[in-house]
């Protein structure tokens, strides 16, 4: 059985006219990295909220279908049970900060304190998370003195230390510089290698193409397709859904250069090997 099972999920926000999610069904396996893409308003953030039962338990509104994680319906799980299983990194890190902690270190410890984790174990987990995200140098700073990018990494660390099996992220690198976002994707890759299930909403299409196992394409609340990055980005109808393919895919499509399986490449490495042959030879570094 898949770890996350979404069946015929429908949701409408209170006072809204149209469905934010319209009959979405999918399965996500344990240890999978699923990227969620689509234009603004497609239902991406709502989908992440539904995985935690925040839709509808917190936001209310009309709801149909079900979301189960390890066989347990998220609507019927207690907040405590669910927090141990699933962590959510908010789209806007300013909304995630508690506002009650004086240092970054204490902020990251907040969730663990609520779980009653022993201090020694807390320190071990916090040190490991800060090292993974390269934020140890900010540990004594005040959370609200951090830049947007630093705060985003702190918010992710606060989730990682709780060691959830599933980590759901809504644009976790939107305020990071290019190197910082690459660092976060590498950190997430490490977590995936540890067996964590990752669901990430992200507009950085080249990163999703390079790191995710499968991509969900949403539009107007409906699941348009869920497949490998190469299959998704080789579709002819991306523009109709407000999404552009990775730069590499755009170039190869225009040039009519496909891989042996008929799909277009989505990463730098693959594109280089396809275009480099017969070219002038590439420098590898």
């Amino acid at each position, binding site marked *: 059985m898949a770890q996350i099972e979404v069946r015929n999920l429908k949701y409408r926000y209170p006072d809204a006219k149209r469905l934010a999610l319209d009959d979405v069904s999918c399965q996500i396996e344990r240890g999978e990295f699923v990227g969620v893409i*689509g*234009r*603004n*308003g497609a239902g991406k*953030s709502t989908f992440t909220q539904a995985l935690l039962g925040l839709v509808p338990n917190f936001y209310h509104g009309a709801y149909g279908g079900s979301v189960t994680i390890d066989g347990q319906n998220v609507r019927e799980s207690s907040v405590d049970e669910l927090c141990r299983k699933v962590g959510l990194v908010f*789209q*806007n890190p*300013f909304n995630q900060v508690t506002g009650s902690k004086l240092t970054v270190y204490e902020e990251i410890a907040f969730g663990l304190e609520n779980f009653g984790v022993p201090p020694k174990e807390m320190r071990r987990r916090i040190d490991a998370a800060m090292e993974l995200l390269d934020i140890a140098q900010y540990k004594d700073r005040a959370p609200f003195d951090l*830049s*947007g*990018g*630093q705060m985003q990494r702190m918010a992710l660390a606060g989730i990682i230390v709780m060691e959830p099996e599933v980590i759901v992220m809504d*644009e976790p690198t*939107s*305020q*990071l*510089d*290019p*190197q*910082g*976002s*690459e660092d976060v994707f590498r950190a997430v890759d490490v977590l995936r290698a540890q067996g964590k299930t990752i669901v990430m909403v992200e*507009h950085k299409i*080249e990163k999703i193409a390079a790191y995710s196992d499968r991509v969900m394409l949403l539009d107007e609340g409906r699941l348009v397709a869920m497949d490998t990055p190469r299959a998704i980005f080789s579709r002819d109808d991306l523009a109709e859904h*407000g*999404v*552009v393919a*990775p*730069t*590499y895919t*755009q*170039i190869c499509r*225009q*040039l*009519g*250069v496909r891989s042996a399986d008929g799909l277009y490449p989505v990463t*730098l490495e693959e*594109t*280089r090997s396809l*275009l*480099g042959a*017969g*070219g*002038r*030879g*590439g*420098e*590898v570094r």
Partner: protein
Amino acid sequence: MSKIDVRDLHFSYAKGPEVLKGLDFSLDGRSCALVGQNGAGKTTFVKLLKGLLRPSSGSILLDGRDIAGSSVPELARHVGLVFQNPNDQIFKNNVLDEVMFGPLQIGMGEGEARASALAALELVGLSGHEAVNPYDLGLSDRKMVSIAAILAMDTDVVIFDEPTIAQDHDGKERLARIVRDLSCQGKVVISILHDMDFVAQTFERVIAMAHGEVLLDADPRSVFSQRDVLERARLEQPTTAQLCHALGYEELFLSPQEFVDFYRSQHGSHA
């Protein structure tokens, strides 16, 4: 056309380390992207331009006049700054009031402020949302409200702090059009950005900062050709430029179309 001269600008917060270590350049009608690692001093610099912070030493001249002589309200007529986090900026109960607030504050009449606000909302694609509470909008639209609120003030200088956050493809295209329009109107447009593809395809000039200093200052093609310097500053090249490098090209292309045209010219029309 307005002009900003930055002269030997130094800044540090309280007794902390120096955040800006002597910036010296002029900003004119060429749209300018400010890039650099988190913590490079970009946001501090634009807060100084807006008069929200005062230099430790050095000066900023707007059309030849030192802005140190102007109060924040006086400066607000000339310099608009869109905050990184729209929640830091937005406080009214509906979109129209929010966007009219700035124009009214700088002395526009009610009718003029309304017309200006409606035009700005059209530019950012939010016509028809005038009565909505900004906090009922998603982050991407709320960001557009904060942009409209500054555009409506019709300032000579328009500064954006990471405008592409949470924007999808259509949103970015819209922002690119706004930047080009403002620049064509002769305004000084400055934007902090981390999206190098957007920078390469939208701006006329790129200033790369690191540790409070200017590392590179030139047109996008020149700046993005300095791969080694960019790497040291933990910056990356636009995606198409990375492909050029990986293929060992001497030429540097900034958009997929430029690359495709070149590749075809090298490999014949069958490619």
